[in-house]
Structure formats: structure tokens, C-alpha cells
């Protein structure tokens, strides 16, 4: 572990800038978007197992009437933490893992716009997650549902919901920092020739998501601050006794909460839009339609939030207006579904786990989307509100949709990230078990919901007619758990395989496949020149007059030649990355991030701790500003070229 740069004399800065880009310690100081992407992914998968364990506890409790696994208090904490974990600590960061890793590679850049801010957003995220989970040890986890409805969330006596408020505030900071960073990266750091309408769909969806985050997070921030002040400082924002209005919480929460569901699903839609054309071996059908419907979803997502509040009593005019906007938002979503189907239509489908998960995504998302439309019908929603029917709906879109899409992406980009192919046969086993298990778990919720089983009850008596479907659901949950274990086994077995994945194992279309697997630290030897949408594909294939694919001659279909991109047109690259300037690692993002949970505990326990947290934050910020722009001595000769020299060039 002695790979951190040895301290040496510095002209300025509190500490020498760390130089090492490999070894255990380098993970704490890295600013490489690829390593940060891996950190996001590993953390999210860890939390996926934690949240999955919580789900199994819930299903164990509800498998039979009068379940004894959890008491009411523990059940409230477990189902709340299950929701918070899966949304904020699994799907969002797993999406962030893909965006962090892939955005620079797909737009032909060497890193994101602000590499240290990228590290900061990861560390703030992980500290936020740890803060949230520390509540289990410190007197009780959040127990008011992920939506934390006031006034219950205010009246709850323990610190549980204060952990909720502060934990989500910290995670919101992470999302905002990351969103600004990635949005700017996409807007301003595209390779020459990569116009907006030549960007991969995944990049487009990522851009929309970043803007949703930028505008949605401040709204929940205000709501959480008001909740926290009500709880800790005696304000009356949601206190109906003196004129406050709990409905304000619902408005603010869902004004964030509905864009949030698109924040969760759009990255998965982007992933599927990348995978389907590759496995169908034809272009994405209606690229512009998919892009514009993604943008339309981004805008329309702001005008539908009241459909979460139809039973709150806002009146028939409001409810009708939002019923109509909600039905309208199904249009751009439907456009995408049909475009994906048309992409597959008459394609030369080659099997592969990414394709399996992508088709699973489309199928399950359609089911979830259709039950979603039934919620848009106000009288029907009156019947469904707070029943398991709603639980069925959002698990079909979030598990069947987002999680299947993300697994498709994991199988698809795994060889690019780690240089090793995940086992296809284990992957297909995982897919089928997960697919069947998922439908067994969440399918019966439709029936239970229509039979009137309410959400968030910790047990139910015998003889309600709910027994059999609850048992089926719990068996299904075990299958989903088994499929997740299969994935873990697959990852462990793959880690022992030799690192021999080719640069372009799937015969793909986008820029990340032009560089080696895994990519070098500097991503591309020569920044690629982009001439068309799916540029890489057009370098490999052309069409015969009959419309058949014909490999381009002159060895261009050979991945080794393709590695250099436009090697024919431009002078040869930097030769192993010599002279490419990359940002040096930094200690300060993790230091700065550590201040936030300290301030959080300070609010809850002792103001002195909060002040100390503020000091850590400031020390981190000033250390950040004052640190030299590169490490002075280079510990590893092979990597030395990456970070010396260019600073002198620029003065």
C-alpha cells in the first residue's frame, strides 16, 4: 500500500498532491472518471444487496398472515430504508456509475469537465449513504416512507426522520455537484465533429437526467430543510395547528418526486437504446424521435406531479388537468417503446445477455407503463391509492424497467470496464430466474391491490383472501434473491479469468469500443474525429446496393487497426499516451466531503460537532483551491508522461 507519493517539498498547498494512480490508496484520491465510475458501481451493487436483504425481510414478514419476523416499528424502518436504499443508493448511483464511466468515452473526451468535483460527488454520496445507515445503530432508521409525508414525519418522536432529512440533503448535494459536472462535460467537451445530433442516445438521456437533477434537487432540498427545521427548531411549516399546511410537503416532495422517477428510468432507457441496435445489427429506429421524446419526457415530467395526490382533495379541476398531462406523458414513452420494437424488427438478432435484459426491460416496462396509465384515471386511482396495485406498478417500472436496463448495461460494458467477459451462460440463468422471480413477486401485487390490501401494513389477519398471493410473492422474492447471488458468483468467477476481452467484443457502434478494454488512463491516444452518428460502425461496415452489410476493406474491421481511430487521416497518436496531460489525484474531495456528515451529526447531537464539520469543510475547500495543479514527482515511470510537461507548455 506504499504507492502514495512520498511527501516532498511544495511551493504552495497544504500537502503535496498525491501522484500514485494505482494501488489501494489511489482509490481514495483518484479523480479518474473511470475509477470513480467503478467506485459508484461497486457501492451501488453493495447497497443493492443490502436493499435486497431488506426486501426479503419484508417478504418474510408478509409471507403468511400474522407474521412474526418483524414488529411494526422494525417493519416501518425496513420498508422505508428499502425504498430509500433502492432509489438513492442503488438506482441513482448505478446510473451515475454508467454516466461517469461512459460519458467521456462516448463523447471522445479524456475526462469529465471537473475531475475533482467528480470525486467529490462520489465521496459525498458514500458519506450520505453511511450517514443514513448509521441511524440503525444510533437509535432508529427513518420510518416514515421514502416520501416522508408531513405531519407524521414531523410528529415522529425519535431522530429517525431527522436522519432521513439530513441524509437526503447530503445525497442531494452529491447529485447536484455531479449533475452540473456531467451536463457541462456533455455540452462543452465533445470530440470534434460530435454535434448534438450525433451523440449516442445514452448521452442524450444522461443530459436530460442531469438537467432534471439540477432543477429537482433544490426543490426537495427546500422541503427537507423545512421538515428538518420543523423537527429540530420548532418552525411551523407543516403544522396545521397554527396555519401551516401539510399539503405543501406533498407538493414540494412530488414536484421533486416525479422528475425523480424519470431520473431513475432515463439512464436505463439510454442503455437499452445503445444495446438494441448493436444486437440487432441495424441502426436505432428513429434516432431523432427517441432523442426528442426523451427531451419531451424531461419537460412534461414537471407537469404531472399531482397524480400522486389525487386523493389529497385538491378538487376536480386540478385532478382533471393533471390526469390529462399524465396521459400525455405516456405518448413520448410509447414512442420510445415502438422505436425499440422497430429496431429489433427484421434485425439479425444475435443472442447475448445484454439483449435478453434489454428485451426484458421493454416487456416489463410496458406492463408497468400500462398500470401507470390506469393511475392517471382519477376515479380508478381513488380505488388504487395506497394499495398494493401501486406497489406493483412502480416495481414493474423500477425493477422490471430500471434494474433490468442497468443489468443489461452491466453485461454489455463489463468487458470494456474490466477487460473480462462475464459468463454468458450464468448471465442467461440469472436473466430467466430474475425474470420469472420478478413477475412472481410483483405480478400478484396487482391482484392483492385490487382486492384491497393496503400498502405499508406490517401484517394482516387470516381470511382476507390475501394469503396465497402473498406466499407466491415471497417465493418469487427468493428467486430474485437467488438471481442476484448468481450475478455475484458470475462477477467472482469472471475476476479469475484472464484479461482477454477484445476492444470491441459486441461489434458495436459507439466510440468507447474504439479504445482498448479496459481503456488506458487517457482514454484515447488521439482524440477521435466524428463524421456521423454511429461513426465507428460506418468505419467498419458499408452497405451493398442490395442493402446488406459489407465490411469496409483495408483491414478496418480489424480492431487493432481501429484502435487508432482516424490513424489514416491524422498523424499517429501520442505513442502510448506520452505527453497527454491528465489531472493528478487529490486528497481534498474526500476531506471536503467528510465535513458534511459531521455537520449533519452536529445538527442532531451537539453544535460543536457541527462547527468542527464546518471547519473540515473549509479546510477541504481551501486545500482544494491551493493545491498545485500537478503532482511534482511521478512515482510510476509508465504513467509519468501522463501528467508532466503540459503545465509548463501552458505557462
Amino acid at each position, binding site marked *: 500500500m506504499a504507492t502514495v507519493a512520498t511527501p516532498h517539498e511544495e511551493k*504552495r498547498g497544504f500537502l503535496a498532491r498525491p501522484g500514485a494512480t494505482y494501488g489501494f490508496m489511489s482509490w481514495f484520491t483518484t479523480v479518474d472518471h473511470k475509477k470513480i465510475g467503478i467506485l459508484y458501481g461497486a457501492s451501488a451493487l453493495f447497497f443493492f444487496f443490502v436493499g435486497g436483504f431488506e426486501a426479503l425481510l419484508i417478504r418474510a414478514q408478509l409471507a403468511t398472515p400474522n407474521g412474526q419476523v418483524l414488529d411494526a416499528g422494525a417493519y416501518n424502518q425496513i420498508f422505508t430504508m428499502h425504498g430509500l436504499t433502492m432509489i438513492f443508493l442503488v438506482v441513482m448511483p448505478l446510473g451515475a456509475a454508467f454516466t461517469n464511466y461512459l460519458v467521456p468515452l462516448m463523447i471522445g473526451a479524456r475526462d469529465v*469537465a*471537473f*475531475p*475533482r*468535483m467528480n470525486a467529490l460527488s462520489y465521496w459525498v454520496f458514500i458519506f450520505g449513504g453511511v450517514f443514513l445507515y448509521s441511524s440503525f445503530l444510533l437509535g432508529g432508521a427513518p420510518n416514515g416512507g421514502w416520501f416522508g409525508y408531513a405531519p407524521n414525519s414531523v410528529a415522529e418522536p425519535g431522530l429517525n426522520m431527522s436522519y432521513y432529512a439530513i441524509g437526503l440533503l447530503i445525497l442531494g448535494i452529491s447529485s*447536484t455537484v455531479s449533475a*452540473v*459536472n456531467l*451536463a*457541462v462535460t456533455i*455540452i*462543452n*467537451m*465533445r470530440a*470534434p465533429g*460530435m454535434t448534438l445530433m450525433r451523440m449516442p442516445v445514452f448521452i442524450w438521456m444522461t443530459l436530460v437526467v442531469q438537467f432534471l437533477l*439540477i*432543477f*429537482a*434537487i*433544490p*426543490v426537495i*432540498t*427546500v*422541503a427537507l*430543510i*423545512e421538515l428538518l*427545521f420543523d423537527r429540530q*427548531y*420548532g*418552525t*411551523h*411549516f407543516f403544522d396545521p395547528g*397554527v*396555519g*401551516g*399546511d401539510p399539503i*405543501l410537503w406533498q407538493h*414540494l416532495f412530488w414536484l421533486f418526486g416525479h422528475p425523480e422517477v424519470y431520473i431513475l428510468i432515463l439512464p436505463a432507457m439510454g442503455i437499452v437504446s445503445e444495446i438494441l441496435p448493436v444486437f440487432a445489427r441495424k441502426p436505432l429506429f428513429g434516432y431523432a424521435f427517441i432523442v426528442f421524446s426523451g427531451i419531451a419526457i424531461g419537460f412534461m415530467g414537471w407537469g404531472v406531479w399531482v397524480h400522486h395526490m389525487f386523493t389529497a382533495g385538491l378538487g376536480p379541476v386540478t385532478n382533471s388537468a393533471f390526469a390529462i398531462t399524465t396521459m400525455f406523458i405516456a405518448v413520448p414513452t410509447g414512442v420510445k417503446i415502438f422505436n425499440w420494437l422497430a429496431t429489433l424488427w427484421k434485425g439479425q438478432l444475435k443472442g447475448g445477455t445484454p439483449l435478453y435484459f434489454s428485451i426484458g426491460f421493454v416487456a416489463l416496462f410496458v406492463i408497468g407503463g400500462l398500470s401507470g396509465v390506469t393511475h392517471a384515471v382519477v376515479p380508478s386511482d381513488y380505488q388504487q391509492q395506497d394499495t398494493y396495485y401501486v406497489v406493483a406498478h412502480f416495481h414493474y417500472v423500477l425493477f422490471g424497467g430500471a434494474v433490468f436496463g442497468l443489468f443489461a448495461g452491466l453485461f454489455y460494458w463489463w468487458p470494456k470496464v474490466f477487460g473480462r467477459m462475464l459468463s454468458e451462460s450464468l448471465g442467461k440463468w440469472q436473466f430467466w430466474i430474475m425474470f420469472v422471480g420478478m413477475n412472481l413477486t410483483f405480478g400478484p401485487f396487482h391482484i392483492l391491490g385490487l382486492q384491497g390490501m393496503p400498502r405499508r401494513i406490517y401484517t394482516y389477519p387470516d381470511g382476507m383472501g390475501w394469503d396465497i398471493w402473498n406466499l407466491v410473492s415471497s417465493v418469487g422474492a427468493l428467486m430474485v434473491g437467488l438471481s442476484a447471488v448468481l450475478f455475484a458468483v458470475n462477477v467472482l468467477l469472471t475476476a479469475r479469468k484472464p484479461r482477454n476481452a477484445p476492444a470491441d467484443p459486441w461489434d458495436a457502434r459507439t466510440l468507447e469500443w474504439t479504445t482498448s478494454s479496459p481503456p488506458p488512463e487517457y482514454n484515447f491516444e488521439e482524440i477521435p474525429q466524428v463524421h456521423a452518428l454511429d461513426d465507428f460502425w460506418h468505419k467498419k461496415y458499408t452497405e451493398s446496393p442490395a442493402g446488406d452489410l459489407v465490411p469496409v476493406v483495408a483491414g478496418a474491421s480489424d480492431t487493432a487497426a481501429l484502435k487508432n481511430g482516424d490513424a489514416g487521416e491524422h498523424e499517429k497518436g501520442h505513442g502510448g499516451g506520452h505527453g497527454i496531460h491528465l*489531472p493528478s489525484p487529490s486528497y481534498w474531495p474526500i476531506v*471536503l466531503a467528510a465535513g458534511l456528515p459531521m455537520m449533519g451529526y452536529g445538527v442532531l447531537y451537539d453544535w460543536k460537532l457541527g462547527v468542527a464539520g464546518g471547519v473540515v469543510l473549509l479546510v477541504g*475547500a*481551501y486545500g*482544494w*483551491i*491551493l493545491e498545485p*495543479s500537478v503532482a511534482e514527482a511521478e512515482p510510476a515511470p509508465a504513467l509519468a508522461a501522463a501528467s508532466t510537461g503540459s503545465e509548463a507548455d*501552458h*505557462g
Partner: protein
Amino acid sequence: MDDAVALEGEHEEHTSTGLPTQKIAMWIFLSSECLLFGALITTYLLYRGRSTVGPYPNDVFDIPFTSVSSFILLGSSLTMVLALSALQHGDLRRFRIWTLTTALMGAAFIGGQVYEFTTFAKEGLHLDTNLFGSTFFTLTGFHGVHVTLGILMLLSLVGLTYSKKVTEQHTLSVELVGLYWHFVDVVWIIIFTLVYLIPDPSGGR
């Protein structure tokens, strides 16, 4: 943190839009801030005139006093512009003077806010007194925190001129802090108008 952003990769040769990456980032960040203040202001307006016990706005507001401190804050936008212009013209001494003046005017505004808050507290208005107290202190308090962070950034800029991180050739970080500062001023115009100048519908019962 924003200064740090500016310093990182300031030598960017090529960008897709031709605009500096840092400046786009600051604009995006400020657009996010709009929603933050938007939600806080909405909460204030929603609860205007709904307090069930006093003190009410008309019992505590001292409009001439707040007008003066508001005027000082708005004036600091001018000195901010002069500071940036001085640096762009290579006049480091004037840059320091105008930046410190801007910070001082911001500090005067914050001093006025502290005085105002303590006076209100003496007159019986606290965070937990009524809806007016809750919404007023939260909204103006968050604005005050923003101004305070701005002052910290301004002082840091002056400090960084001595370590050559801010020079005649590196004016972007000053521009970014300037954008932030002007934004905070504009938000205060909105808050001052909506909170202080438009009469409370309850007529200050």
C-alpha cells in the same frame, strides 16, 4: 469551491461551444439556485397573512433601515463590476481595492441583517413564534448565508492574488464569483420587493 472550479483546467484550448466550461457550469449552478430560492419564496408567499399569532410583518419591519442596507448590497454589484474591469485592465491594486469594497458592502448588509434579526427577536419574533417567523427567517437567512459565502469567496480572491492563482491572465475565477454575487443581489431585489414592500394582506393585524 467555485474558485477551485475556475482554477482547474483554466487553460482549456478547445470547447464544443467556444465558451469557458467553468462559466457554463456556474450558469447551470445558478439555475439550480433559482429553484432553491423559488421554493423558499413560494413557501413564504403561500403562508403570507396566515399567522395565527403576532408579531406580524407590520409590527416589526423597519422599511427605511432595510432599504438602506438593500441599497448597499445592490451598490456592491457596481463595485464588483469595477473590480473585474480593473483586473482585466491589468490593475491589480485597484482590483484588490474594489474587491475588498464589495466584500465590505456585503458585510455591511449582513451586519444589517444580524441587527434586524436581533431586533425582531427582542420584539418577540422567533423562528418558532408563528408562520411569519418560520418563513421569514428561513428565507432571508438562506439568502444571508449565500451573501456570507460570497464574501468569503471575494476575500479568497484577494488572498489568491498574492499566491499568483488570480492574476491579470486569470480573470475567469473573478468573473465566476461576480456572476454568483450578481445573482445573490438579484435574488435580494425579489425578496425585498415581495417580503418588505408589498403590504401584507392581513394588514398587520
